């Protein structure tokens, strides 16, 4: 009953989606964990108990203790501090690379979907060709080509994830273009650019938001993978992927070196996926 009253009081489509999202436990959990990690990334300098690159001979591969909660690595660096600073690389890689994909994929997708004809044929074939290559393989190849650094890794991941956004945007534009309200906008004399930005784009953002959230999760994994291979964050700067890479040699002597970064990747990716699933349900107009 209370919900019904709320629905009538408050109107905008965005707010109703937020309300539906709040009713999903998984989505709320995902959202909370994502916010938690973002706060850690922002507050890293104040939260980290040690300098993440400071080595200590006395603490080499020290087990978790009151001094080093998560233990220390092969050079005696505090694992907790490195996890905290590594959050920055992961979140940054996720957000920046997906922003690159959105910035490239959405305009190109809108162009192909809206213009159709040879533009569509050409770009769609290129997209198909890129999608034929597995996402991670493409990212690794691009990162290797650009040279190892976190920035290049983000660019490589961003470009590799772009075809998915081109294809999704194109499909959504094709569907929206057939709607009567777009036809009405044309009949009223709207120029093409305005139809695309004012009448089509706002109606296709929902699936794009969902895809972006899920892509961030994939980008976090991709960054960890590239760093694991030495193509991402460069030592001694911390990254969950490169931490896993070094931990590989000490799994039996110092398992904490592997457990914490592994757990962090797992938790962050799971949360982005839960949030994405929740958003997909909340933004779906068929759910009233």
């Amino acid at each position: 009953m209370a919900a019904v009253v709320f629905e009538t009081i408050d109107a905008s489509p965005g707010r109703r989606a937020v309300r539906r999202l709040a009713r999903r436990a998984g989505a709320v959990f995902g959202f909370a964990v994502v916010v938690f990690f973002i706060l850690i990334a922002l507050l890293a300098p104040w939260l980290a108990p040690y300098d993440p690159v400071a080595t200590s001979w006395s603490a080499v591969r020290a087990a978790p203790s009151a001094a080093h909660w998560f233990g220390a690595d092969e050079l005696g660096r505090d694992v907790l501090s490195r996890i905290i600073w590594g959050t920055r690389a992961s979140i940054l890689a996720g957000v920046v690379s997906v922003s690159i994909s959105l910035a490239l994929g959405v305009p190109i997708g809108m162009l192909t979907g809206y213009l159709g004809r040879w533009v569509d044929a050409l770009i769609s074939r290129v997209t198909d060709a890129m999608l034929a290559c597995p996402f991670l393989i493409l990212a690794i190849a691009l990162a290797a080509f650009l040279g190892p650094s976190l920035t290049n890794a983000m660019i490589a991941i961003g470009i590799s994830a772009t075809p998915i956004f081109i294809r999704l945007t194109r499909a959504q534009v094709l569907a929206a273009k057939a709607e009567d309200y777009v036809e009405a906008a044309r009949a009223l004399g709207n120029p093409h650019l305005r139809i695309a930005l004012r009448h089509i784009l706002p109606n296709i953002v929902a699936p794009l938001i969902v895809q972006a959230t899920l892509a961030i999760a994939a980008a976090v994994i991709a960054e960890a993978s590239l760093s694991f291979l030495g193509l991402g964050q460069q030592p001694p700067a911390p990254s969950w992927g490169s931490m896993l890479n070094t931990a590989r040699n000490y799994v039996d002597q110092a398992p904490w070196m592997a457990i914490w970064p592994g757990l962090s990747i797992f938790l962050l990716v799971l949360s982005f996926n839960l949030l994405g699933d929740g958003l997909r349900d909340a933004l779906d107009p068929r759910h009233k």
Partner: protein
Amino acid sequence: MLEGAAVSEPLLRARGLVKHFKKVQAVDGISFDLHAGETLALVGESGCGKSTAGKLLLRLIEPTAGAVLFKRQNIYELKEREMRSLRREMQVIFQDPYGSLNPRMTVGDMLEEPLRLHGLHRCNERARVTELLGLVGLSPEHAQRYPHEFSGGQRQRIGIARALAVEPRLIVCDEPVSALDVSIQAQVINLLQDLQRQFGLAYLFIAHDLAVVKHIATRVAVMYLGKFVEVAEKHSLFARPRHPYTRALLSAIPVPDPALKKQRLVLQGDVPSPYDPPSGCRFRTRCPWARERCAAEEPRLLEGVACHFWRELEPYASASQSALVNERLARLQAAFQSGGAT
């Protein structure tokens, strides 16, 4: 002096409009005039090309051949920019009140947009929006709401207000009431008629409900497989349908009284595919009066009928028919009287 000439001249002339989608002959050579203040109803089964004809008229799609002369200009020869400014004069109302409004725009934004596009009522847009809402029987506070907060009938009123915003001279109404309840239908139809009287609008009224057509139309064009088979003044069409297809359409109006036995002309088979329409007269495959000549020679639209033999057919029993249509109409109007207050 010029005024006098403009009155007798039609607002719009469509000449030989053809639209083929690949091989599908959706519209195949239709011509008609539309005068200010009149309603030309376009009727026919679904898939006969009615909506395509409406879109061609507004140049929402490009024709395969033909011309639409509006103010003596062929609209298909206009450049993009010229066409955009001409759109002020010709508007559209859609069938589906749910699909025709942008779900992410408030009603106020929706009505303000056309004003800004064409630079109308500068600095007074808000007042004009209120005025428009009043014209279609909505209140000013509705401007802040989103489409999903309205009922089907209200949404259709918003669609009408949006079309009126630019003060057009012609509105293509593409089945504007067929998605609405009967009581709401009457309200919307009466609203359209009031607006027509008030602003001297010309309507191209696409419909399949003959009761509605009989109420609103001035003239009726009957379409079959992309061509006009009959064009006539409303009264003569309903009283004396000439083309066999028109007769079949009129006799297909359902009878509410089972005691009333009427002679029905039931068509056999389905509408042939517009991929490969029949030779000669397109209606011959379903026409009970078809002869050899019908397959060989395509009838031309002469005196408003495209049939070789219409003069030879037995007279149409019309009395009960018009009574039936009037009965339906009476219900529509009764519904309006009772529902008009809300």
